[in-house]
C-alpha cells in the first residue's frame, strides 16, 4: 500500500493494488463530528419536552431497561419522529447535493427545478379530490414530484445535450406555473380543507410513526448507496463538459443517473414529511463550507441535512409551547437566515 500526496494538498490517495481511495483528512474529521452531532441531536430530541426524560433514562429506554413510562415516551412516541426526521434530513441533504452538483449551481435544489412544487400539486389533488388519506397524499406527492422533474428534464434537453443553466431556468418556469396551479386549488377549496392542506404543504414531522419509518428507511438506504456510488464521477463531472469527456465520462448519462437518484430521495422525503423547504438548498452549501473540499460532498451534506432537520424539529416542537409549529416553518426561517448571514460574511471577506 502506498500513500501518495497527490493533487490538492488537502487530500491523500491511498492505493492498494488496483484500488485507490482518496482521503481528505478535514472532510473525514468534519463528517465524524457531524455524525456525533447527529447522535447528540437525536438524544436531545428524545429527552427534551414537557415530560423531560434525563439522558440516562433515554439510554436505558433505548436499550430496553427503562421504566414503562420512559419506554412509552421515548421509544413509542419520540423515537419514530426523531428517526424519520434524521432520515428525511439525510435524504434532503443528499438530494440537494446531487442536484447542485448536476446543475453546477448553488440554487439548483429540488425546490428550484420544480420538484417540491410539483409534489405539492400532486398532494393537493390527492387531498382535495380523493378520499384516500395519508397514503394517497404521499403517492400523489411522489407522482407529482417525479413527473415534474421528468418533464423539466425533458424540456431542458436539446440536440446539443443538457445545459445545466437551462435546466435551472426551465425549472423556475415550471415551478412558477405549478405554484399558480396550487394557489388555484387552495383558493377554490373549503377553508377547512385548505388549511389542513397548508399544514401539509409547509412540511411537518408530527405524526411520524413506526410504519412511516419502515416505509422510508429502505428507500433512503438504497438512494444513499446509489448516490455514494456516483460521487467520484460527479466530482469529475463538475468540470467543463469537454474536460469530463476527455476523462472518459458520459456527462449526459451521469447527469440523468444523478437526477434520478436525487428525485428518488426527494420523493421519499416529501412522501414522509411534505415539502420541507430549504434543507436541500442550504445543507450542501453549509457542508461545502465546513469541509472546504471540492466535489459534491455527499456524505457531509447528508449529515448536515439530518442534524439541521432534527434540531429544527426539536425547536419547532418545544420553543413555542403550547403551540407546535410545523418544522417547515422553522427550516425556512432558520436555514434561510443562516445562509443569508453566511453569504454576507463570506462576501465581506472577499472569498467566494
Amino acid at each position, binding site marked *: 500500500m502506498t500513500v501518495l500526496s497527490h493533487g490538492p494538498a488537502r487530500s491523500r490517495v491511498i492505493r492498494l493494488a488496483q484500488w485507490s481511495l482518496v482521503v481528505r483528512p478535514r472532510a473525514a474529521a468534519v463528517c465524524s463530528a457531524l455524525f456525533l452531532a447527529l447522535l447528540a441531536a437525536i438524544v436531545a430530541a428524545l429527552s427534551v419536552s414537557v415530560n423531560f426524560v434525563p439522558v440516562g433514562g433515554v439510554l436505558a429506554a433505548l436499550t430496553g431497561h427503562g421504566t414503562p413510562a420512559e419506554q412509552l415516551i421515548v421509544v413509542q412516541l419520540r423515537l419514530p419522529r426523531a428517526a424519520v426526521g434524521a432520515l428525511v434530513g439525510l435524504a434532503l441533504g443528499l438530494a440537494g447535493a446531487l442536484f447542485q452538483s448536476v446543475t453546477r449551481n448553488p440554487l439548483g435544489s429540488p425546490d428550484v427545478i420544480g420538484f417540491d412544487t410539483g409534489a405539492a400539486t400532486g398532494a393537493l389533488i390527492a387531498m382535495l379530490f380523493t378520499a384516500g388519506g395519508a397514503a394517497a397524499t404521499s403517492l400523489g406527492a411522489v407522482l407529482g414530484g417525479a413527473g415534474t422533474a421528468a418533464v423539466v428534464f425533458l424540456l431542458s434537453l436539446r440536440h446539443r445535450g443538457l445545459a445545466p443553466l437551462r435546466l435551472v431556468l426551465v425549472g423556475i418556469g415550471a415551478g*412558477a406555473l405549478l405554484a*399558480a*396551479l396550487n394557489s388555484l386549488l387552495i383558493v377554490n377549496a373549503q377553508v377547512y380543507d385548505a388549511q389542513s392542506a397548508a399544514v401539509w404543504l*409547509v412540511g411537518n414531522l408530527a405524526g411520524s410513526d413506526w410504519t412511516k419509518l419502515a416505509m422510508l428507511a429502505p428507500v433512503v438506504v438504497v438512494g444513499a448507496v446509489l448516490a455514494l456510488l456516483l460521487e467520484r464521477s460527479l466530482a469529475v463531472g463538475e468540470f467543463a463538459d469537454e474536460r469530463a469527456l476527455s476523462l472518459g465520462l458520459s456527462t449526459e448519462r451521469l447527469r440523468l443517473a444523478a437526477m434520478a437518484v436525487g428525485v428518488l430521495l426527494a420523493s421519499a422525503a416529501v412522501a414522509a414529511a411534505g415539502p420541507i423547504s430549504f434543507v436541500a438548498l442550504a445543507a450542501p452549501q453549509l457542508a461545502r463550507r465546513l469541509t472546504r473540499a471540492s466535489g459534491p460532498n455527499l456524505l457531509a451534506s447528508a449529515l448536515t441535512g439530518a442534524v439541521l432537520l432534527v434540531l429544527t424539529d426539536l425547536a419547532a416542537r418545544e420553543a413555542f409551547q403550547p403551540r407546535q409549529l410545523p418544522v417547515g416553518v422553522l427550516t*425556512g426561517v432558520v436555514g434561510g437566515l443562516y445562509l*443569508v448571514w453566511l453569504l*454576507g460574511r463570506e462576501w*465581506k471577506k472577499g472569498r467566494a
Partner: protein
Amino acid sequence: MTPHSSGRRLALFAALLAAVAAAALLSLMVGRQPLSPATVLHALAPHSTGAAADIVRGLRLERTVVAVAVGLALGGAGALMQALTRNPLADPGLLGVNAGAAAAVVTGFALFGISGRYPQMWLALGGAAAASVVVYLIGSGGRSGATPARLALAGAALSAVLLAYINALALRDQRSYDTMRFWVAGSVVNRGLDTLVAALPFLVVGTVLALLLTPGLNALALGDDRGRALGVRVGLVRVLTAAAVTLLCGAATAVAGPIGFLGLTVPHIVRFLVGPDQRAVVPMSMLLSAALLVLADTAGRVIGTGREIEAGIMTAILGAPVFIALVRRRKLVAL
C-alpha cells in the same frame, strides 16, 4: 439610431398602445353578461344609465383600470431590475421584493389587525424597500460588488425566510389564513378605486423616475467604468433605479397582491423585439405588461367555471410556458 429602427420603434409603440386599448375594451365587454363594443362605448359616456352602464362602470371599469395600472408598474419594475442587476432572471419575485411587501402586509393584518387601505399601502412599500435594501446589502458586500448570481442567491434566501414567516403567521388561526390565501393569489377584483388612488402618487413618481433613468441604465450596461467615463454617476443611477423598482413593486403589490411573472417574462419578449436599448425596453415593457395583465384578468373571467380565476394565477399559467419556450429556443438576449 438609424431612421429605419426608429420608425420600427414608433410602429411598435403605436401597436402596443393599441393593444392596451383593445385589451381594455375586451375586458369591459367580456363577462357573465357579454356586451357589444357599441354598448360598452355608449355606457362609458357620461350620464348614461341602465343595466349596461351599471355593469361597465360599476363592475368592470374599476378592475380594468386597476389591471392597467398594476401591469404598467410590474412591467416597468421588471425591466428596470433586469437592467440594474444585469441579470436576465431578475424579477421582483425572485429578488425578494414581493415577499417583503407581502410579509409586511400579512404581519399587519395577522398581528395588529391593520386592514385599512392606506396603512396597507405604507406597509407594502416599507416591506418592499426593506427587502430590496437587505438583498442589495447582502449581495454587494465585499470587493467584487453585487454580481447577478449573488443578488439572486441573496434574494432566494431572503424570499425563503419571508415565505416561511408568512406561513407561520397564516397557520396561527383560520381567519388570517382565509384572508391570506386570497390575498396571496393576486387579483385585480374588488380592490377599490380608493386603493388605486392611494397608490397613484407612488406609481407616478416611480414611472417618471424609471423613464428618466433609462439613458443612465444604457450607459451602465457597458460596465461601471465605461459608464463613469460617459459621465454617468453610477452609484446615483443604481440607487434611484432601486428606489423606482421599490415604489412600483410596493404600490402594485399593495393594490393587487403579489402578481408574479409579468416582470420576469415581459422584458425578455420586448428585448427580443427591440434589442437592448433601455429607452425602448422600459416603456414598452410597461405597455405590454399592462395589456397582458388586462387580458389575463379577462381570460380568468371566461375560463373559470362557477368562479373566476385570479389574475395573478392566470399570469403565471400563461407566462410560464412562454418563458420556458424562450429559454428553450434561444440564448437569452444578453444584457
